[in-house]
Protein backbone atom coordinates (compact mmCIF):
# COMPACT_ATOMS: atom_id res chain seq x y z
CA UNK A 1 0.00 0.00 0.00
CA UNK A 2 2.74 2.46 1.00
CA UNK A 3 4.67 1.40 -2.11
CA UNK A 4 1.80 2.37 -4.39
CA UNK A 5 1.20 5.61 -2.52
CA UNK A 6 4.84 6.69 -2.77
CA UNK A 7 4.84 5.78 -6.45
CA UNK A 8 1.69 7.85 -6.99
CA UNK A 9 3.10 10.90 -5.20
CA UNK A 10 6.33 10.62 -7.17
CA UNK A 11 4.36 10.32 -10.40
CA UNK A 12 2.29 13.43 -9.74
CA UNK A 13 5.39 15.41 -8.69
CA UNK A 14 7.30 14.29 -11.77
CA UNK A 15 4.26 15.19 -13.85
CA UNK A 16 4.38 18.70 -12.39
CA UNK A 17 8.03 19.01 -13.33
CA UNK A 18 7.28 17.72 -16.84
CA UNK A 19 4.59 20.35 -17.18
CA UNK A 20 7.08 23.13 -16.42
CA UNK A 21 9.39 21.61 -19.04
CA UNK A 22 6.87 20.85 -21.74
CA UNK A 23 4.72 23.97 -21.39
CA UNK A 24 7.66 25.96 -22.75
CA UNK A 25 8.20 23.47 -25.56
CA UNK A 26 4.50 23.45 -26.41
CA UNK A 27 4.43 27.25 -26.36
CA UNK A 28 7.29 27.58 -28.82
CA UNK A 29 6.20 24.65 -30.98
CA UNK A 30 2.48 25.34 -30.85
CA UNK A 31 2.62 29.08 -31.38
CA UNK A 32 5.72 29.66 -33.50
CA UNK A 33 5.92 26.20 -35.15
CA UNK A 34 9.60 25.98 -34.18
CA UNK A 35 10.70 22.46 -33.19
CA UNK A 36 13.15 23.62 -30.55
CA UNK A 37 15.54 20.72 -29.99
CA UNK A 38 17.60 22.80 -27.55
CA UNK A 39 14.77 22.52 -25.04
CA UNK A 40 16.45 19.66 -23.15
CA UNK A 41 19.72 21.63 -23.18
CA UNK A 42 17.98 24.68 -21.71
CA UNK A 43 16.63 22.45 -18.95
CA UNK A 44 20.12 21.10 -18.28
CA UNK A 45 21.66 24.59 -18.36
CA UNK A 46 19.06 25.75 -15.83
CA UNK A 47 20.10 22.93 -13.50
CA UNK A 48 23.84 23.60 -13.96
CA UNK A 49 23.55 27.39 -13.61
CA UNK A 50 21.40 26.97 -10.50
CA UNK A 51 23.85 24.49 -8.99
CA UNK A 52 26.76 26.85 -9.68
CA UNK A 53 25.02 29.85 -8.11
CA UNK A 54 24.27 27.77 -5.01
CA UNK A 55 27.82 26.47 -4.76
CA UNK A 56 29.11 29.99 -5.22
CA UNK A 57 30.31 32.02 -8.19
CA UNK A 58 32.96 34.67 -7.47
CA UNK A 59 32.71 34.02 -3.74
CA UNK A 60 28.96 34.75 -3.59
CA UNK A 61 26.68 31.88 -2.61
CA UNK A 62 22.99 32.24 -3.25
CA UNK A 63 20.10 30.41 -1.65
CA UNK A 64 17.93 28.10 -3.75
CA UNK A 65 15.27 30.62 -4.70
CA UNK A 66 17.64 33.41 -5.68
CA UNK A 67 19.70 30.92 -7.66
CA UNK A 68 16.52 29.70 -9.35
CA UNK A 69 15.48 33.23 -10.34
CA UNK A 70 18.92 34.11 -11.64
CA UNK A 71 19.33 30.83 -13.54
CA UNK A 72 15.87 31.22 -15.08
CA UNK A 73 16.68 34.77 -16.20
CA UNK A 74 19.99 33.66 -17.66
CA UNK A 75 18.41 30.79 -19.63
CA UNK A 76 15.60 33.09 -20.84
CA UNK A 77 18.21 35.56 -22.06
CA UNK A 78 20.03 32.74 -23.84
CA UNK A 79 16.75 31.74 -25.48
CA UNK A 80 16.15 35.31 -26.63
CA UNK A 81 19.65 35.43 -28.14
CA UNK A 82 19.13 32.12 -29.98
CA UNK A 83 15.88 33.44 -31.44
CA UNK A 84 17.30 36.84 -32.36
CA UNK A 85 20.62 35.74 -33.81
CA UNK A 86 19.84 32.40 -35.47
CA UNK A 87 16.22 31.27 -35.69
CA UNK A 88 15.06 34.65 -36.96
CA UNK A 89 17.01 34.03 -40.16
CA UNK A 90 15.10 30.82 -40.88
CA UNK A 91 11.39 31.63 -40.76
CA UNK A 92 9.11 28.76 -41.69
CA UNK A 93 11.97 26.42 -42.59
CA UNK A 94 11.43 23.51 -40.21
CA UNK A 95 14.40 21.47 -41.43
CA UNK A 96 16.82 24.36 -40.99
CA UNK A 97 15.39 25.10 -37.56
CA UNK A 98 15.79 21.47 -36.52
CA UNK A 99 19.39 21.39 -37.73
CA UNK A 100 20.37 24.65 -36.04
CA UNK A 101 18.75 23.76 -32.72
CA UNK A 102 20.21 20.25 -32.90
CA UNK A 103 23.65 21.74 -33.55
CA UNK A 104 23.21 24.13 -30.63
CA UNK A 105 22.17 21.26 -28.35
CA UNK A 106 25.41 19.40 -29.16
CA UNK A 107 27.42 22.53 -28.48
CA UNK A 108 25.59 23.09 -25.19
CA UNK A 109 26.11 19.47 -24.09
CA UNK A 110 29.83 19.65 -24.82
CA UNK A 111 30.08 23.06 -23.16
CA UNK A 112 28.53 21.65 -19.97
CA UNK A 113 30.89 18.69 -20.04
CA UNK A 114 33.83 21.04 -20.43
CA UNK A 115 32.79 23.43 -17.64
CA UNK A 116 31.21 21.14 -15.06
CA UNK A 117 32.91 17.82 -15.83
CA UNK A 118 31.39 14.36 -16.03
CA UNK A 119 30.35 13.85 -12.38
CA UNK A 120 26.76 14.60 -11.36
CA UNK A 121 26.32 17.75 -9.25
CA UNK A 122 23.75 17.48 -6.47
CA UNK A 123 21.41 20.36 -5.77
CA UNK A 124 20.32 20.75 -2.14
CA UNK A 125 16.60 20.76 -1.43
CA UNK A 126 15.70 24.28 -0.22
CA UNK A 127 15.56 24.25 3.60
CA UNK A 128 11.94 25.42 3.72
CA UNK A 129 10.89 22.32 1.79
CA UNK A 130 12.88 19.63 3.59
CA UNK A 131 10.27 18.08 5.89
CA UNK A 132 7.15 15.98 5.39
CA UNK A 133 3.49 16.79 5.59
CA UNK A 134 1.26 14.21 7.30
CA UNK A 135 -2.13 13.56 5.84
CA UNK A 136 -3.88 10.79 7.71
CA UNK A 137 -1.71 7.69 7.63
CA UNK A 138 0.64 8.92 4.88
CA UNK A 139 3.51 11.43 4.87
CA UNK A 140 4.31 13.44 1.75
CA UNK A 141 7.66 15.15 1.12
CA UNK A 142 7.14 18.92 1.09
CA UNK A 143 9.46 19.37 -1.89
CA UNK A 144 7.29 17.19 -4.12
CA UNK A 145 4.11 18.85 -2.96
CA UNK A 146 5.70 22.23 -3.71
CA UNK A 147 6.51 21.19 -7.28
CA UNK A 148 2.90 20.19 -7.83
CA UNK A 149 1.71 23.49 -6.37
CA UNK A 150 4.14 25.50 -8.50
CA UNK A 151 3.08 23.61 -11.64
CA UNK A 152 -0.57 24.38 -10.93
CA UNK A 153 0.20 28.06 -10.29
CA UNK A 154 2.20 28.27 -13.53
CA UNK A 155 -0.53 26.49 -15.48
CA UNK A 156 -3.14 28.97 -14.29
CA UNK A 157 -0.75 31.89 -14.79
CA UNK A 158 0.11 30.88 -18.37
CA UNK A 159 -3.52 30.33 -19.20
CA UNK A 160 -4.40 33.79 -17.85
CA UNK A 161 -1.47 35.30 -19.74
CA UNK A 162 -2.43 33.79 -23.09
CA UNK A 163 -6.21 33.94 -22.84
CA UNK A 164 -6.97 36.97 -20.70
CA UNK A 165 -4.28 39.61 -21.20
CA UNK A 166 -3.55 42.06 -23.96
CA UNK A 167 -0.10 40.52 -24.44
CA UNK A 168 -1.69 37.10 -24.91
CA UNK A 169 -4.13 38.48 -27.47
CA UNK A 170 -1.25 40.13 -29.33
CA UNK A 171 0.72 36.88 -29.34
CA UNK A 172 -2.23 34.92 -30.69
CA UNK A 173 -2.84 37.57 -33.34
CA UNK A 174 0.85 37.57 -34.30
CA UNK A 175 0.78 33.79 -34.75
CA UNK A 176 -2.51 33.53 -36.64
CA UNK A 177 -1.85 36.33 -39.11
CA UNK A 178 1.53 38.04 -38.73
CA UNK A 179 1.01 40.44 -41.64
CA UNK A 180 -2.34 41.68 -40.38
CA UNK A 181 -0.95 41.95 -36.85
CA UNK A 182 1.89 44.13 -38.15
CA UNK A 183 -0.61 46.33 -39.96
CA UNK A 184 -2.49 47.04 -36.74
CA UNK A 185 0.78 48.01 -35.07
CA UNK A 186 1.83 44.84 -33.21
CA UNK A 187 5.59 44.32 -33.24
CA UNK A 188 5.46 40.64 -34.15
CA UNK A 189 9.20 40.02 -34.24
CA UNK A 190 9.61 41.33 -30.70
CA UNK A 191 6.66 39.23 -29.54
CA UNK A 192 8.31 36.12 -30.97
CA UNK A 193 11.48 36.88 -29.06
CA UNK A 194 9.39 37.26 -25.90
CA UNK A 195 7.61 33.96 -26.48
CA UNK A 196 10.89 32.16 -27.12
CA UNK A 197 12.49 33.69 -24.02
CA UNK A 198 9.45 32.72 -21.97
CA UNK A 199 9.58 29.13 -23.20
CA UNK A 200 13.33 28.93 -22.60
CA UNK A 201 12.95 30.44 -19.14
CA UNK A 202 10.31 27.85 -18.25
CA UNK A 203 12.72 25.07 -19.30
CA UNK A 204 15.54 26.60 -17.24
CA UNK A 205 13.26 27.00 -14.22
CA UNK A 206 12.14 23.37 -14.57
CA UNK A 207 15.83 22.40 -14.65
CA UNK A 208 16.66 23.89 -11.29
CA UNK A 209 13.32 22.85 -9.74
CA UNK A 210 14.05 19.28 -10.78
CA UNK A 211 17.61 19.60 -9.46
CA UNK A 212 17.04 18.23 -5.95
CA UNK A 213 15.52 14.99 -7.28
CA UNK A 214 17.37 14.61 -10.61
CA UNK A 215 20.67 16.49 -9.98
CA UNK A 216 22.66 17.99 -12.86
CA UNK A 217 24.58 15.48 -14.98
CA UNK A 218 25.80 15.06 -18.58
CA UNK A 219 23.05 13.51 -20.68
CA UNK A 220 20.26 15.17 -18.69
CA UNK A 221 19.33 17.06 -21.87
CA UNK A 222 18.92 13.86 -23.88
CA UNK A 223 16.86 12.32 -21.08
CA UNK A 224 14.46 15.24 -20.85
CA UNK A 225 13.93 16.25 -24.50
CA UNK A 226 12.12 13.02 -25.51
CA UNK A 227 9.90 13.34 -22.44
CA UNK A 228 8.87 16.84 -23.51
CA UNK A 229 8.21 15.48 -27.00
CA UNK A 230 6.06 12.66 -25.69
CA UNK A 231 4.05 15.03 -23.52
CA UNK A 232 3.42 17.35 -26.44
CA UNK A 233 2.52 14.56 -28.88
CA UNK A 234 0.29 12.96 -26.25
CA UNK A 235 -1.43 16.13 -25.08
CA UNK A 236 -1.57 17.89 -28.42
CA UNK A 237 0.42 20.87 -29.63
CA UNK A 238 -0.52 24.38 -28.68
CA UNK A 239 -2.80 23.29 -25.87
CA UNK A 240 -1.89 24.14 -22.26
CA UNK A 241 -4.51 21.72 -20.96
CA UNK A 242 -2.98 19.08 -23.23
CA UNK A 243 0.48 19.74 -21.80
CA UNK A 244 -0.88 19.50 -18.27
CA UNK A 245 -2.82 16.27 -18.71
CA UNK A 246 -0.06 14.80 -20.89
CA UNK A 247 2.55 15.60 -18.22
CA UNK A 248 0.59 13.87 -15.47
CA UNK A 249 0.00 10.80 -17.67
CA UNK A 250 3.68 10.61 -18.65
CA UNK A 251 4.67 11.15 -15.00
CA UNK A 252 2.64 8.10 -14.00
CA UNK A 253 3.82 5.91 -16.86
CA UNK A 254 7.45 6.89 -16.30
CA UNK A 255 7.48 6.14 -12.56
CA UNK A 256 5.37 3.00 -12.72
CA UNK A 257 7.31 1.76 -15.74
CA UNK A 258 10.65 2.30 -13.99
CA UNK A 259 9.43 0.49 -10.87
CA UNK A 260 7.61 -2.44 -12.45
CA UNK A 261 9.34 -3.09 -15.79
CA UNK A 262 12.81 -1.53 -15.51
CA UNK A 263 14.14 -3.28 -18.62
CA UNK A 264 11.34 -2.04 -20.84
CA UNK A 265 10.81 1.32 -19.14
CA UNK A 266 11.47 3.27 -22.31
CA UNK A 267 9.27 1.08 -24.41
CA UNK A 268 6.40 1.36 -21.94
CA UNK A 269 6.91 5.11 -21.88
CA UNK A 270 6.60 5.54 -25.62
CA UNK A 271 3.80 3.00 -26.10
CA UNK A 272 0.94 5.39 -25.19
CA UNK A 273 2.46 7.96 -27.52
CA UNK A 274 2.30 5.45 -30.35
CA UNK A 275 -1.31 4.56 -29.48
CA UNK A 276 -2.29 8.23 -29.49
CA UNK A 277 -0.54 8.72 -32.83
CA UNK A 278 -2.47 5.81 -34.31
CA UNK A 279 -5.91 6.71 -32.99
CA UNK A 280 -5.74 10.47 -32.53
CA UNK A 281 -2.80 11.99 -34.44
CA UNK A 282 -3.52 15.55 -33.27
CA UNK A 283 -3.09 14.52 -29.62
CA UNK A 284 -5.66 14.29 -26.84
CA UNK A 285 -6.42 18.03 -26.74
CA UNK A 286 -4.68 19.22 -29.90
CA UNK A 287 -6.26 21.61 -32.32
CA UNK A 288 -3.95 21.28 -35.30
CA UNK A 289 -2.92 18.07 -36.94
CA UNK A 290 0.75 17.59 -36.20
Amino acid at each position, binding site marked *: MTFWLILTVNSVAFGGLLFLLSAGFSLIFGLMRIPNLTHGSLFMLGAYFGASFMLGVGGVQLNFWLAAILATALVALLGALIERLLLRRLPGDALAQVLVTLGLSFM*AADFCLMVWGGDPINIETPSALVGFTRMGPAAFPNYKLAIVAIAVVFAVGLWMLLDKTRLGAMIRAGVDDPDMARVVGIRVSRLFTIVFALGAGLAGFAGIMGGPSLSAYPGLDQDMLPLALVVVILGGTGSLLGSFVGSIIVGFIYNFGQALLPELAYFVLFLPMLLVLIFRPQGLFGRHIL
Partner: protein
Amino acid sequence: MSGMSNARNVALVAALAALVILPFWMPGIYYINVASQVLFYAIFALGLNLLVGYGGLVSLGHAGLFGITAYATAYLLSMGTGHTAAILGGLVISLGATAIFAALALRATGIGFIMITLALGQIIWGLAYRWISITGGDNGINVKARPAPFGFDLGAPNEFYYTTLIIFLIALVAVTIFVRSPFGAALKGTRDQPRRMNALGYHVWAIRFWACMLSGLLTAIAGVLFVYYTQFISPQTTSLTSSAEVLLMVIAGGPATLLGPIVGAALVVIVKNVVSGYIERWNFLLGAIFVAIVILMPEGLVPGTVRLWRHGWRAFRRRRSITLAGNAERKS
Protein backbone atom coordinates in the same frame (compact mmCIF):
# COMPACT_ATOMS: atom_id res chain seq x y z
CA MET B 1 27.02 22.27 -70.76
CA SER B 2 28.45 19.25 -72.60
CA GLY B 3 31.90 20.39 -71.60
CA MET B 4 30.71 20.42 -68.02
CA SER B 5 29.30 16.86 -68.12
CA ASN B 6 32.42 15.58 -69.92
CA ALA B 7 34.56 17.01 -67.12
CA ARG B 8 32.19 15.37 -64.69
CA ASN B 9 32.51 11.96 -66.36
CA VAL B 10 36.28 12.21 -66.37
CA ALA B 11 36.24 13.12 -62.68
CA LEU B 12 33.94 10.18 -61.91
CA VAL B 13 36.11 7.67 -63.77
CA ALA B 14 39.20 9.07 -62.05
CA ALA B 15 37.50 8.81 -58.63
CA LEU B 16 36.44 5.24 -59.37
CA ALA B 17 39.94 4.28 -60.43
CA ALA B 18 41.38 5.91 -57.32
CA LEU B 19 38.96 3.88 -55.17
CA VAL B 20 39.77 0.60 -56.92
CA ILE B 21 43.54 0.97 -56.49
CA LEU B 22 43.21 2.67 -53.09
CA PRO B 23 44.99 -0.04 -51.04
CA PHE B 24 48.07 0.42 -53.29
CA TRP B 25 48.47 4.15 -52.76
CA MET B 26 47.23 4.53 -49.19
CA PRO B 27 50.15 4.72 -46.78
CA GLY B 28 48.83 2.26 -44.21
CA ILE B 29 46.17 -0.08 -42.88
CA TYR B 30 44.70 2.67 -40.72
CA TYR B 31 43.80 4.71 -43.80
CA ILE B 32 42.35 1.71 -45.61
CA ASN B 33 40.11 1.12 -42.62
CA VAL B 34 39.06 4.78 -42.65
CA ALA B 35 38.25 4.37 -46.37
CA SER B 36 36.05 1.35 -45.55
CA GLN B 37 34.25 3.45 -42.95
CA VAL B 38 33.68 6.23 -45.47
CA LEU B 39 32.15 3.71 -47.89
CA PHE B 40 29.67 2.09 -45.53
CA TYR B 41 28.68 5.43 -44.05
CA ALA B 42 28.19 6.63 -47.65
CA ILE B 43 25.71 3.75 -48.18
CA PHE B 44 23.94 4.83 -44.98
CA ALA B 45 23.87 8.47 -46.14
CA LEU B 46 22.62 7.48 -49.63
CA GLY B 47 19.77 5.65 -47.90
CA LEU B 48 18.85 8.57 -45.67
CA ASN B 49 19.12 10.98 -48.60
CA LEU B 50 16.34 9.10 -50.43
CA LEU B 51 14.03 10.31 -47.68
CA VAL B 52 15.59 13.68 -46.81
CA GLY B 53 16.57 14.87 -50.27
CA TYR B 54 14.14 13.20 -52.64
CA GLY B 55 11.20 12.59 -50.32
CA GLY B 56 11.38 15.73 -48.18
CA LEU B 57 11.02 13.52 -45.10
CA VAL B 58 13.67 14.27 -42.48
CA SER B 59 14.31 11.28 -40.23
CA LEU B 60 16.08 11.79 -36.93
CA GLY B 61 15.80 8.13 -35.99
CA HIS B 62 17.82 6.43 -38.70
CA ALA B 63 20.62 5.46 -36.33
CA GLY B 64 17.97 3.37 -34.59
CA LEU B 65 17.31 1.35 -37.76
CA PHE B 66 21.05 1.10 -38.38
CA GLY B 67 21.50 -0.13 -34.81
CA ILE B 68 18.65 -2.66 -34.99
CA THR B 69 20.35 -4.42 -37.91
CA ALA B 70 23.70 -4.38 -36.16
CA TYR B 71 22.20 -5.66 -32.88
CA ALA B 72 20.15 -8.35 -34.62
CA THR B 73 23.15 -9.60 -36.58
CA ALA B 74 25.44 -9.50 -33.56
CA TYR B 75 22.85 -11.20 -31.34
CA LEU B 76 22.24 -14.00 -33.85
CA LEU B 77 25.98 -14.51 -34.19
CA SER B 78 26.37 -14.63 -30.40
CA MET B 79 23.64 -17.31 -30.34
CA GLY B 80 25.86 -19.41 -32.58
CA THR B 81 24.06 -18.79 -35.88
CA GLY B 82 26.15 -18.90 -39.06
CA HIS B 83 27.14 -15.72 -40.89
CA THR B 84 24.69 -16.08 -43.80
CA ALA B 85 21.75 -16.69 -41.49
CA ALA B 86 22.81 -13.87 -39.16
CA ILE B 87 23.12 -11.37 -42.00
CA LEU B 88 19.80 -12.38 -43.55
CA GLY B 89 18.17 -12.37 -40.11
CA GLY B 90 19.54 -8.90 -39.43
CA LEU B 91 18.22 -7.59 -42.74
CA VAL B 92 14.76 -9.16 -42.29
CA ILE B 93 14.38 -7.91 -38.70
CA SER B 94 15.53 -4.47 -39.78
CA LEU B 95 13.07 -4.34 -42.67
CA GLY B 96 10.27 -5.37 -40.31
CA ALA B 97 11.27 -2.59 -37.94
CA THR B 98 11.47 -0.14 -40.85
CA ALA B 99 7.92 -1.04 -41.90
CA ILE B 100 6.63 -0.32 -38.38
CA PHE B 101 8.75 2.83 -38.22
CA ALA B 102 7.41 4.06 -41.56
CA ALA B 103 3.80 3.20 -40.76
CA LEU B 104 3.98 5.27 -37.58
CA ALA B 105 6.08 8.18 -38.80
CA LEU B 106 4.18 8.59 -42.08
CA ARG B 107 1.07 9.58 -40.17
CA ALA B 108 2.67 13.00 -40.39
CA THR B 109 4.98 14.99 -42.64
CA GLY B 110 7.21 17.99 -42.02
CA ILE B 111 7.88 18.74 -38.37
CA GLY B 112 5.61 15.91 -37.25
CA PHE B 113 7.67 13.35 -39.16
CA ILE B 114 10.87 14.69 -37.61
CA MET B 115 9.42 14.54 -34.10
CA ILE B 116 8.01 11.02 -34.45
CA THR B 117 11.23 9.61 -35.92
CA LEU B 118 13.17 11.33 -33.13
CA ALA B 119 10.93 9.69 -30.54
CA LEU B 120 11.14 6.28 -32.26
CA GLY B 121 14.92 6.56 -32.41
CA GLN B 122 14.96 7.29 -28.69
CA ILE B 123 12.81 4.18 -28.02
CA ILE B 124 15.35 2.03 -29.82
CA TRP B 125 18.17 3.74 -27.92
CA GLY B 126 16.30 3.16 -24.64
CA LEU B 127 15.76 -0.52 -25.47
CA ALA B 128 19.41 -0.98 -26.46
CA TYR B 129 20.47 0.65 -23.22
CA ARG B 130 18.04 -0.99 -20.80
CA TRP B 131 17.06 -4.38 -22.27
CA ILE B 132 20.25 -5.85 -20.91
CA SER B 133 19.32 -9.53 -21.27
CA ILE B 134 19.32 -9.10 -25.08
CA THR B 135 21.65 -6.19 -25.78
CA GLY B 136 24.12 -6.39 -22.91
CA GLY B 137 23.37 -2.76 -22.02
CA ASP B 138 26.41 -0.53 -21.98
CA ASN B 139 28.72 -3.53 -22.46
CA GLY B 140 27.22 -4.14 -25.88
CA ILE B 141 27.72 -7.30 -27.91
CA ASN B 142 31.02 -8.45 -29.37
CA VAL B 143 31.27 -10.14 -32.75
CA LYS B 144 34.04 -12.72 -32.65
CA ALA B 145 35.01 -12.97 -36.30
CA ARG B 146 34.28 -11.60 -39.75
CA PRO B 147 33.03 -14.11 -42.33
CA ALA B 148 35.31 -15.77 -44.89
CA PRO B 149 33.12 -16.65 -47.90
CA PHE B 150 34.82 -19.04 -50.34
CA GLY B 151 38.12 -18.64 -48.50
CA PHE B 152 38.06 -14.86 -49.02
CA ASP B 153 38.97 -13.77 -45.47
CA LEU B 154 37.22 -10.50 -44.62
CA GLY B 155 39.29 -10.26 -41.45
CA ALA B 156 42.03 -8.60 -43.51
CA PRO B 157 41.65 -4.83 -44.12
CA ASN B 158 42.10 -5.01 -47.92
CA GLU B 159 39.55 -7.77 -48.41
CA PHE B 160 37.06 -5.97 -46.20
CA TYR B 161 37.66 -2.77 -48.14
CA TYR B 162 37.03 -4.41 -51.51
CA THR B 163 33.87 -6.11 -50.28
CA THR B 164 32.59 -2.77 -48.96
CA LEU B 165 33.56 -1.07 -52.22
CA ILE B 166 31.63 -3.60 -54.34
CA ILE B 167 28.55 -3.31 -52.14
CA PHE B 168 28.88 0.48 -52.21
CA LEU B 169 29.06 0.57 -56.02
CA ILE B 170 26.02 -1.71 -56.32
CA ALA B 171 24.14 0.55 -53.89
CA LEU B 172 25.18 3.66 -55.81
CA VAL B 173 24.05 2.21 -59.15
CA ALA B 174 20.77 1.06 -57.57
CA VAL B 175 20.10 4.48 -56.09
CA THR B 176 20.96 6.19 -59.38
CA ILE B 177 18.54 3.94 -61.28
CA PHE B 178 15.88 4.45 -58.63
CA VAL B 179 16.17 8.22 -58.59
CA ARG B 180 15.92 8.42 -62.39
CA SER B 181 13.04 5.95 -62.59
CA PRO B 182 9.36 6.95 -62.77
CA PHE B 183 9.11 5.97 -59.12
CA GLY B 184 11.89 8.38 -58.22
CA ALA B 185 10.14 11.12 -60.15
CA ALA B 186 6.92 10.32 -58.32
CA LEU B 187 8.74 10.53 -54.99
CA LYS B 188 10.07 13.97 -55.88
CA GLY B 189 6.52 14.88 -56.90
CA THR B 190 5.20 13.91 -53.46
CA ARG B 191 7.91 16.08 -51.93
CA ASP B 192 7.02 19.19 -53.93
CA GLN B 193 3.32 18.87 -54.67
CA PRO B 194 1.71 16.14 -52.54
CA ARG B 195 -1.85 17.32 -53.12
CA ARG B 196 -1.42 17.63 -56.87
CA MET B 197 0.13 14.15 -56.97
CA ASN B 198 -2.86 12.86 -55.07
CA ALA B 199 -5.23 14.52 -57.51
CA LEU B 200 -3.29 12.95 -60.41
CA GLY B 201 -4.06 9.53 -58.96
CA TYR B 202 -0.78 8.71 -57.27
CA HIS B 203 -0.96 6.99 -53.89
CA VAL B 204 1.21 9.47 -51.97
CA TRP B 205 1.35 7.42 -48.78
CA ALA B 206 2.40 4.25 -50.61
CA ILE B 207 5.13 6.08 -52.53
CA ARG B 208 6.53 7.46 -49.28
CA PHE B 209 6.22 4.08 -47.58
CA TRP B 210 8.24 2.29 -50.25
CA ALA B 211 10.82 5.06 -50.22
CA CYS B 212 11.16 4.44 -46.48
CA MET B 213 11.58 0.71 -47.10
CA LEU B 214 14.29 1.27 -49.70
CA SER B 215 16.01 3.74 -47.39
CA GLY B 216 15.73 1.16 -44.60
CA LEU B 217 17.27 -1.54 -46.80
CA LEU B 218 20.33 0.60 -47.56
CA THR B 219 20.56 1.55 -43.88
CA ALA B 220 20.41 -2.12 -42.91
CA ILE B 221 23.14 -3.08 -45.40
CA ALA B 222 25.32 -0.33 -43.95
CA GLY B 223 24.47 -1.61 -40.47
CA VAL B 224 25.67 -5.13 -41.29
CA LEU B 225 28.92 -3.76 -42.72
CA PHE B 226 29.32 -1.58 -39.63
CA VAL B 227 28.90 -4.40 -37.13
CA TYR B 228 31.42 -6.56 -39.03
CA TYR B 229 33.79 -3.62 -39.29
CA THR B 230 33.85 -2.68 -35.59
CA GLN B 231 32.99 -6.24 -34.42
CA PHE B 232 31.12 -4.53 -31.59
CA ILE B 233 27.76 -2.82 -31.08
CA SER B 234 26.70 -0.63 -28.16
CA PRO B 235 23.79 1.78 -27.44
CA GLN B 236 25.96 4.74 -28.51
CA THR B 237 25.49 3.65 -32.14
CA THR B 238 21.72 4.13 -31.91
CA SER B 239 21.84 7.52 -30.15
CA LEU B 240 20.52 10.82 -31.41
CA THR B 241 24.12 11.94 -31.98
CA SER B 242 24.62 9.11 -34.47
CA SER B 243 21.37 9.99 -36.27
CA ALA B 244 22.54 13.58 -36.41
CA GLU B 245 25.94 12.58 -37.79
CA VAL B 246 24.44 10.80 -40.79
CA LEU B 247 21.99 13.64 -41.32
CA LEU B 248 24.97 15.98 -41.31
CA MET B 249 26.58 13.86 -44.05
CA VAL B 250 23.48 14.34 -46.20
CA ILE B 251 23.05 18.03 -45.43
CA ALA B 252 26.74 18.91 -45.64
CA GLY B 253 27.26 17.15 -48.97
CA GLY B 254 24.01 18.34 -50.49
CA PRO B 255 20.58 16.72 -50.20
CA ALA B 256 18.82 15.52 -53.36
CA THR B 257 22.12 14.95 -55.16
CA LEU B 258 23.76 11.59 -55.81
CA LEU B 259 27.32 12.61 -54.95
CA GLY B 260 26.50 14.91 -52.05
CA PRO B 261 25.96 12.23 -49.39
CA ILE B 262 29.16 10.44 -50.47
CA VAL B 263 31.24 13.61 -50.17
CA GLY B 264 29.46 14.37 -46.89
CA ALA B 265 30.24 10.89 -45.54
CA ALA B 266 33.89 11.27 -46.47
CA LEU B 267 34.05 14.70 -44.89
CA VAL B 268 32.38 13.69 -41.60
CA VAL B 269 34.28 10.40 -41.20
CA ILE B 270 37.63 12.01 -41.96
CA VAL B 271 37.03 15.06 -39.77
CA LYS B 272 35.82 12.81 -36.97
CA ASN B 273 38.86 10.53 -37.20
CA VAL B 274 41.27 13.44 -37.44
CA VAL B 275 39.64 15.51 -34.70
CA SER B 276 39.33 12.64 -32.25
CA GLY B 277 43.06 12.14 -32.68
CA TYR B 278 43.78 15.63 -31.39
CA ILE B 279 40.93 16.90 -29.22
CA GLU B 280 37.89 15.50 -27.47
CA ARG B 281 35.55 18.24 -28.57
CA TRP B 282 33.98 16.37 -31.52
CA ASN B 283 30.41 17.03 -30.40
CA PHE B 284 31.03 20.76 -30.13
CA LEU B 285 32.54 20.82 -33.61
CA LEU B 286 29.67 18.71 -35.00
CA GLY B 287 27.18 21.21 -33.60
CA ALA B 288 29.13 24.19 -34.90
CA ILE B 289 29.35 22.66 -38.40
CA PHE B 290 25.57 22.14 -38.39
CA VAL B 291 24.90 25.76 -37.48
CA ALA B 292 27.49 27.09 -39.93
CA ILE B 293 26.23 25.02 -42.88
CA VAL B 294 22.59 25.89 -42.33
CA ILE B 295 23.36 29.59 -42.06
CA LEU B 296 26.11 29.90 -44.69
CA MET B 297 25.61 27.17 -47.30
CA PRO B 298 22.12 25.75 -46.88
CA GLU B 299 22.17 23.88 -50.20
CA GLY B 300 25.16 21.76 -49.11
CA LEU B 301 28.82 21.71 -50.07
CA VAL B 302 28.55 19.93 -53.43
CA PRO B 303 25.80 22.10 -54.98
CA GLY B 304 27.28 25.12 -53.21
CA THR B 305 30.71 24.55 -54.75
CA VAL B 306 29.17 23.85 -58.16
CA ARG B 307 27.26 27.12 -57.87
CA LEU B 308 30.41 29.05 -56.95
CA TRP B 309 32.34 27.30 -59.74
CA ARG B 310 29.73 28.09 -62.38
CA HIS B 311 29.45 31.61 -61.08
CA GLY B 312 33.20 32.04 -61.35
CA TRP B 313 33.30 30.41 -64.82
CA ARG B 314 30.56 32.67 -66.13
CA ALA B 315 32.20 35.77 -64.68
CA PHE B 316 35.47 34.73 -66.35
CA ARG B 317 33.79 34.18 -69.73
CA ARG B 318 31.96 37.48 -69.48
CA ARG B 319 35.14 39.38 -68.67
CA ARG B 320 36.94 37.70 -71.58
CA SER B 321 34.16 38.49 -74.06
CA ILE B 322 34.12 42.07 -72.87
CA THR B 323 37.87 42.39 -73.42
CA LEU B 324 37.56 40.74 -76.84
CA ALA B 325 34.78 43.11 -77.79
CA GLY B 326 36.84 46.02 -76.51
CA ASN B 327 39.83 44.90 -78.60
CA ALA B 328 37.63 44.54 -81.70
CA GLU B 329 36.28 48.01 -81.17
CA ARG B 330 39.73 49.50 -80.81
CA LYS B 331 40.89 47.77 -84.00
CA SER B 332 37.99 49.16 -86.01
